[in-house]
């Protein structure tokens, strides 16, 4: 038996971002995996020293481009709690609509990259074509495609008119039709199933023990979704977390695919319940105190810890991102895999290095 060490990355065609995996390989089977991070580390938690708490909203949005709306919303929620203000109901509902649209764009991106990791180029192109409908509606309603910057402390800065709401409904209808069409390819296709079934199985107990979050945990059969705590406007809407029991790549794919439809339902009922009124509560206070706030991102639960002492600058901002927590699960999954499956299984956990390293 030959034992060799194969470094994958930092620049690798399958991973969008720089990150290195050192794989100890016995013949073709991985026996040990060691990650090396730090290629995207910026140290933005320390930026609280030089930027005030309102400017930090813009920094929080730029932790990760794929879930920026939800990062911004979570940061604003934390500061609002410290200030003791509540955004008006219309702002809360608009936040929900935009964060669910963001979730859709993230999940579609993931589905596309997953197809590409399988080597299924035409499916990748097809999914990215569907995704552009979501991107267009984000651009039309917020003014930018990826970093939408709608959250401000106390509410949102853009209002949604009736035309915009209709646009969103029309776009969702189109996306739903297109997604139904690719469903047989993702779920029933022989070659896709051969490639994804029973690959990288994360057992239920192990996933919980390792602290996995989000779709990874739900694909292993544990129903956990921070949106169920009812933060923001989520308390008004009724939904059940999407759970699959397989724990393999196929299950993770199914969870994300079904969550797309769940997001669409949430957006539709959110738009129906949109009340009239203000979109911002203004406050001139400065935050003081200590707080822990959680939200559900496309990749799972994000935790913000903030300590403030009543001055313009926060004392400490700490962000535990979902991909950071899932990294331990990934390192547990890799040993025992065939070398050729490593990119696919790595991608199935949706590693976002920009989030992981901040």
């Amino acid at each position, binding site marked *: 038996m030959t034992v060799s060490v194969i470094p994958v990355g930092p620049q690798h065609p399958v991973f969008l971002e720089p990150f290195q995996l050192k794989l100890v390989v016995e013949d073709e089977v991985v026996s040990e995996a060691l990650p090396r991070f730090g290629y995207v580390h910026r140290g933005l938690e320390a930026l609280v020293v030089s*930027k005030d708490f*309102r*400017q*930090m909203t*813009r*920094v929080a949005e*730029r932790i990760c481009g794929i879930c920026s709306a939800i990062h911004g919303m979570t940061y604003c929620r934390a500061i609002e709690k410290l200030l003791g203000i509540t955004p008006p109901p219309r702002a809360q509902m608009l936040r929900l609509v935009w964060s669910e649209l963001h979730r859709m764009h993230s999940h579609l991106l993931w589905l596309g990259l997953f197809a590409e990791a399988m080597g299924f180029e*035409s*499916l990748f192109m*097809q999914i990215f*074509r569907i995704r552009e409908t979501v991107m267009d509606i984000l*651009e*039309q309603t*917020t*003014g*930018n495609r990826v*970093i939408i*910057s709608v959250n401000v402390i106390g509410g949102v*800065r*853009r209002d949604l008119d009736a035309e915009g709401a209709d646009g969103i409904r029309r776009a969702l209808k189109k996306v739903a039709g297109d997604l139904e*069409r*690719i469903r*047989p*390819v993702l779920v*029933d*296709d*022989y*070659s896709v199933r051969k490639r994804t079934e029973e690959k990288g199985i994360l057992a239920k107990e192990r996933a919980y023990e390792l602290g996995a979050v989000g779709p990874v945990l739900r694909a292993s059969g544990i129903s956990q979704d921070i949106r169920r705590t009812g933060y923001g406007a989520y308390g008004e809407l009724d939904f059940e977390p999407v759970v699959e029991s397989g724990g393999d790549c196929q299950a993770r794919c199914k969870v994300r695919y079904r969550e797309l439809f769940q997001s669409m339902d949430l957006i539709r009922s959110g738009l129906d319940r949109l009340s009239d009124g203000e979109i911002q509560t203004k406050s001139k206070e400065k935050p003081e105190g200590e707080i822990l706030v959680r939200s559900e991102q496309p990749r799972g639960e994000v935790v913000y810890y903030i300590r403030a002492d009543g001055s313009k600058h926060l004392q400490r901002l700490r962000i535990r991102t979902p991909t950071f927590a899932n990294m331990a699960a990934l390192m547990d999954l890799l040993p025992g895999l065939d070398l050729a499956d490593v990119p696919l299984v790595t991608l199935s956990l949706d590693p976002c290095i920009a989030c992981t390293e901040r």
Partner: protein
Amino acid sequence: MTSMLKILLKNGTGRYATRLYPAEAREPFAKNRADLSFDPGCCRLCKTCSRKCPTGAIEVDKENRTWKRDVFSCVFCGDCIEACPKSCLSFVARPPLPQKHHQQAVVYATVPERSKK
């Protein structure tokens, strides 16, 4: 297998998906946050925009009456637009053009003197 074939056939016969940029540029959405425009006529040199900017891209010089913005540092967040008490700043829907030199990045404006009322 056949399911993908169906989609591909539909793509082949359906409408062309690609936007033929730059031959046919689509009209940008009206509320795009793509670039900033500054109207020096109403500026009072109060420096609010430069204080609110999260990247420090805006510099206001009271003595020389100049206002400058580093396009390469700007993140187009719009905090300065909201903060401006005189509404001198606004969004432009068309994005800034790519540049070949770093020196071309700064937008200057001289604020005209006005008579005291």
